[in-house]
């Protein structure tokens, strides 16, 4: 009977989507293993009310370990989780990806002499044990990873697990005193979570609207910016239009630009040649708008629209705004 300890990151009075997904997944797997899913939270007591912590029960955690400690830094959490796992005997530590998830998971691996798998996209139960799946070789292949240690560490891709409420139960909140290692206290947070609006990092965007030569001219990007705004996403570009000076290099996707895997990739006026494809083929949902029905992009898009993007894009923007607003 194995239990799972899940790290939950909170910020500004709420747990992020990523953490809720991780707790939900932890609960699902613990159920299959016949064990329990517990969560651990670290931070200022003031920001971690009983109510907030107990709310993780809705996502399947039966207990939440609350530790008072520095916020936003990984090593104190390693100390906390190592302490809890040694005391309580969890067999797995689960992280929903993201910067801290990776840092904590890696440090914990060292501390507990554990097995670790990173970039996990899926986990299953086999013979009473967890087996992680992760993509390799540019998402062209999936590898199974088996753990051969007392503790298995699972670090998923960001937002790989979906948050699922499984009931109304409140989790039990238990305060844990942790003695932090000297080195864990040698990093001090000065400013946390500063937003730098101007330069949106397209690699982090959930939704991308990308433009290619089919836009016809640099001004074509204005309509895409409107659409991206309506969808709540960012704008990206192909190498050809960046070369032509229509858009900035920081938005370039493809073999020599950035690789992205957003939830939605909407490609307007892009043919889908392989140099571009390799930069975005990992996207969850690919929508393509192109007037050439033979464009290669239609071979791998989930939804292909053959038509004039100059007609379609503005109307799509209006329709999206209407649906969201209404």
């Amino acid at each position, binding site marked *: 009977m194995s239990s799972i300890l899940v790290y939950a990151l909170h910020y500004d009075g709420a747990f992020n989507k990523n953490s809720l997904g991780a707790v939900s997944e932890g609960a699902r797997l613990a159920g299959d293993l016949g064990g329990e899913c517990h969560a651990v939270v670290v931070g200022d007591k003031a920001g971690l009310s009983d109510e907030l912590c107990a709310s993780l029960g809705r996502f399947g955690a039966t207990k939440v370990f609350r530790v008072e400690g520095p916020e936003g830094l990984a090593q104190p959490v390693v100390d906390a989780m190592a302490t809890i796992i040694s005391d309580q005997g969890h067999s797995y530590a689960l992280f929903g990806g993201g910067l801290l998830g990776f840092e904590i998971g890696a440090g914990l691996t060292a501390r507990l002499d554990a097995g670790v798998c990173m970039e996990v996209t899926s986990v299953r139960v086999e013979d009473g044990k967890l087996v992680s799946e992760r993509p390799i070789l540019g998402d062209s292949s999936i590898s199974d990873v088996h753990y051969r240690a007392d503790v298995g560490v699972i670090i998923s891709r960001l937002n790989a697990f979906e948050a699922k409420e499984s009931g109304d139960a409140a989790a039990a909140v238990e305060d844990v005193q942790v003695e932090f290692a000297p080195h864990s206290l040698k990093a001090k947070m000065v400013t946390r979570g500063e937003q730098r609006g101007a330069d949106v990092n397209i690699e982090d965007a959930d939704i991308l609207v990308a433009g290619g030569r089919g836009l016809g001219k640099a001004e074509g990007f204005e309509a895409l910016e409107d659409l991206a705004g309506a969808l709540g996403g960012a704008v990206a570009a192909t*190498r050809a239009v960046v*070369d032509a000076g229509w858009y900035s*290099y920081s938005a370039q996707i493809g*073999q*020599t630009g950035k690789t992205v895997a957003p939830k939605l990739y909407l490609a307007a006026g892009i043919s889908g*040649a392989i*140099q571009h494809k390799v930069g975005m083929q990992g996207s969850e949902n690919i929508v393509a708008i192109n007037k050439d029905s*033979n464009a*290669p992009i239609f*071979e791998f898009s989930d939804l292909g629209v053959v038509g004039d993007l100059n007609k379609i894009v503005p109307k799509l923007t209006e329709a999206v705004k209407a649906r969201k607003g209404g």
Partner: protein
Amino acid sequence: MAVAPIEFPPPVDPAAEFISPPTDPEDERIEVGVAIVGGGQAGMACAIRLLQLLEDDPALAESLGEVPVAVIEKGRVAGAHQLSGAVMNPAAIRSLLPDDDSWPHYGEVGKETVYFMLNGRRAVPLKPTPPPFRNHGNYVVSVAELNRWLGERAEEAGAYVLSETVGAKLLVEDGAVLGVRTGDKGRDKEGGQKSNFEPGSDVVAKATVLAEGCWGHLTGAAIAGLGLAGTDPQVWALGVKEVWEVERPLDRVIHTLGWPLRPQAKYKEFGGSWIYPMNREGEKPRVSLGFVAGLDYADARFSVHDVLQEFKLHPLVRKILADGKRVAWGAKAIPEGGYWAMPRLHAPGMVICGDAGGMVNVPKLKGIHYAIRSGMLAAETIYRQLKAGSRDFSAYETAVHDSEIGKDLYESRNMKQPFAKGLIVGGAITNAMVITKGRIPGGHWAMHRDADQPLLVTKRDERYPKPDGKYTFDKLSGVFLTGNATRDDAPSHIRIQQRVPRELAEAWAWMCPAGVYEVPEDAPQNGRHVDLIVNPSNCVQCGAITAKGGRLTPPEGGDGPVYQIT
């Protein structure tokens, strides 16, 4: 009025731009004994031979300083820019390394067939096999693989192989070659300096070997600037190649002539295909296949890459590639001018080896063993002359012409030109030449530059198959397969006029196997000038554009393809 590419010459003056005296302060120049530009078969053979001779001559070795032999190679590694058929005559490599037979190959040639393809469905084997095609005793090799092996032997022998380094300028002072200047790194699109800009260096040497291969950047500059031109201008063919993993091993070496090339004289389509088995124990069987065509073809819509795709539709080829998987693609130009186009092979302080010196036997499709042999001869002359305190390497040229290289090339000196009269007449004439070892008809059949050929526009493109991504392919997926990671915020390394008549822009777009040139979608249809689109980051440095009206210069060192089994 038909347009010829030569009417729109590229904006470049190789002699003025790429030849200069050293500019670095003396104490910043890098001194080496012998600088070899190009780490291909000729360059590595030269390096190895030199180091063999120096091993037995410590006095001379010491006089050459800390770095007696340096090989300057623009590819990511030596071998990254290597592509050929190929069936190699082993005599030269065995002569170079008599105690080491471990050079990689795919077996000795056994069965061999030459087919004449009548059309897209039928092929007739030519019996007996025409003399140029008899490859008994030769070996199937991948030059990308072979070159890597030679590079390791050269490094073991003590050569400094400087990969990702371009020989950008020839250093010449008072008519003597002093070395080369390497290329800059870290320039931006406008040619300015990025934050990590690193200028090249003057590499001065007692002897400089130009072994740059088929489109020789510095060789071209040297020929123009030092007066080394041969009797005729050099002409080239373009070869586009694929390597396939197949289910059933191929049991013979195959060459084809005829379809899909058109026999009529007006098209000037000269070339053919090869299909070679690459069978090695413990490895999945593979096949190397490719199509070659002379770049003086007339049709603006002729595309060697697409002709290769069309060629694969022939049942003979389908049977061989059935259920297979393409694992490599690439392209490279081949010098076809033979004897009359060979430049003078030396200047004070410098020699020219291999393909850069036009040492390719066109009828026999052989050049690798000449490259190795010429590298060895260059090493031997340089060794003797440096020992005597001289930088006069004229004896090298004599040695090349006295060797099998000179004899073979002289014999076949007129064998391509008759094909300008069309396949049938040309074939008959060439046959006569082969049988009489070049004596009949003798004389000098002059050649014209590839770019002199006026273009005609047909609907040739309608015959090319639409790529299906599994058996036939578009150009860009091939470029991707080469591992080409040319920096795309770098300045364009292609010199070409950008405002040209439509048919010329089309000719370049179809010619280039990597899709570097494009005609804008909204360009006017008839004859008026269009603004050519150039995508330099696709370039696999095959060299075809240099033949047909533009000029390739080397981009940043390390750029370009990373061929592995071509």
